[in-house]
């Protein structure tokens, strides 16, 4: 009976799995949710093996699921243009996609998710679009605060904050304060973020510490800069996997310092279309890669 059932599941998979790669929105979401839950179970088995053996092989197996995934949410405007919609509708579709994915990511064991929501360069966009985006961030923080609190998701917002509206700043402080004690799930929103500015502000903070006599100039090293970067709020500041949607193959000033050994994945799908199938592909692809962190194996 066992073999009959396993044959049945294999045939079902043969029919349904190709749908993951052909259709943007698979018509069997229940199956995919089960698959995602199952990934969690499968990887928990790998973690059990690692604890039991504690060898180098065990440590390599620990790298099966990324601890920190960073996502550049690209393609909202092109998605709207393709459908004859307004740019604002594209951004709204992107925001809905974001909320759908975040909890699925945490459910399968990812500890930290970073989202490049708004870059410093984006201030150059039309005023209407920028104002809409700021209002949308505010609306989402307000509507989702209870949700993050209920599911114990720590929220951190990294970025410059000098040009943000006061109302949004106040809301960010409120959300960060309300969720600061949570540890296992961490959502980092990069708003008005620039990788170069991150490095410069780290240097500036170290300069202030030097001025105040807390450190000496000669003590300055890479680790000190690591600790002053905006991502130091996270237990896993360096992303294991960076996904940029829409097919563009660059990191556009996001996590320049932190991404030295990050796996880069550039799927050719726009962010509002980045569904569970694409997400499964990204994780499967990550698990098949061999990472050596610059050392010889």
């Amino acid at each position, binding site marked *: 009976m066992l073999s009959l059932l396993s044959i049945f599941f294999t045939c079902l998979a043969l029919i349904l*799995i190709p749908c993951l790669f052909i259709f943007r929105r698979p018509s069997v979401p229940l199956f995919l949710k089960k698959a995602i839950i*199952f990934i969690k179970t499968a990887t928990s088995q790998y973690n059990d093996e690692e604890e039991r053996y504690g060898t180098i092989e065990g440590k390599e197996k620990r790298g099966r699921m990324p601890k920190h995934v960073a996502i550049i949410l690209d393609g909202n405007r092109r998605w709207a243009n393709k459908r004859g919609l307004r740019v604002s509708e594209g951004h709204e579709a992107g925001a809905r996609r974001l909320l759908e994915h975040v909890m699925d990511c945490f459910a399968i064991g990812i500890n930290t998710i970073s989202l490049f929501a708004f870059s410093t*360069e984006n201030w150059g966009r039309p005023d209407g679009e920028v104002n809409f985006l700021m209002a949308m961030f505010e609306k989402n923080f307000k509507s989702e605060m209870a949700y993050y609190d209920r599911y114990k998701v720590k929220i951190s917002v990294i970025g410059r904050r000098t040009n943000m509206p006061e109302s949004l700043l106040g809301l960010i402080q409120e959300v960060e304060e309300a969720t600061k004690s949570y540890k296992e799930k961490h959502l980092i929103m990069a708003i008005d973020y620039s990788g170069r500015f991150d490095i*410069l502000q780290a240097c500036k903070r170290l300069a202030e510490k030097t001025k105040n006599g807390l450190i000496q100039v000669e003590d300055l090293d890479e680790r000190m800069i690591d600790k002053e970067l905006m991502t130091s709020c996270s237990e896993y500041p360096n992303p294991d996997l960076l996904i940029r949607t829409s097919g563009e193959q*660059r990191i556009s000033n996001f996590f320049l310092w932190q991404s*030295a*050994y990050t*796996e880069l994945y550039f799927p050719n799908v726009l962010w509002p279309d980045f569904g569970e199938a694409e997400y499964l592909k990204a994780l499967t692809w990550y698990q098949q*890669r061999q990472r050596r962190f610059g050392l010889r194996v």
Partner: protein
Amino acid sequence: MKTRLVWLRNSGQTVAVGAANSLPPSSAVVRLDQMSGPVYTVPVPDMILDYMDFNDPMLALSSWIGQIGDFGLDLVWRFIHIVVTLWHIVSGIFESVESYAISLGLIQKYSSIDIEKLKCLAVVVDIEAARDVSKVIELLQWLTTIGVKQVGLFDSQGLLKKSKDMILEMVPRSVLLQETGEKHISPDRIALEFISSSDNKEAVVKAANILLEKYLKSIHPENGVGENVFTESHLNEALRVVGESVHVPDLLLVYGPVRSHLGFPAWRLRYTEIVHMGSLKYMRYGSLLKAIHKFTGVRQNYGV
């Protein structure tokens, strides 16, 4: 007294099945010595097991269904991996065929490339691949043929830096970038730059030291405020002082098993297109041409 059929997990590889008469109803921990009667060991996959009351067939049935479901999902997950691997193999075969066609000049659109758009190309080489300098030299010869004027070669441990003299000798019309400077490269020459991890974070730390000292010297004794030296242009200048190039490569080709820039100078990667080319050992001229051609068609908005 009820007889309970008990399943035990033993190092994930075998299970012991037997009867136990003296267990409390909700015991979750069972030892072999608590079991009576014959004990059978059965090899099973590492699944979550539980003990079941043999006298309740519905409970037994639901537990069986759960275990079979888990096993089935395990198969499905492994099958997803197989499908994705097969997909990559098939697409790899198509890419190989296309690459050979491009190399032979059979595909018209790759026969002319607007190379002027590619001012600076960087190549990241995995340290295993960097040991085979002949492949690196072959790649540079291809780039010279295509017409690329400036190439930065990076490997994390600086192996290519050590082979710098040999590479400059073997690649025709090549010069060291540091000797000529970016603006004085002759049209018939290719300028090479050799980069390693020490040019990444270490260099930024040295540049930050320079800015730190400049800041401390500029502090006014009255108000304790120093000059704002922490700007991009100041850091660019400080990097030049420590001997680093700040030129941003337009295109970065990654040769290695991992799609990662492996510690290429972070400060220079802001808007660089990053293309993973696979193994250097199996590099193809057609794939190189295709990557450069694709880059010339890219349009960047730079966030605006």
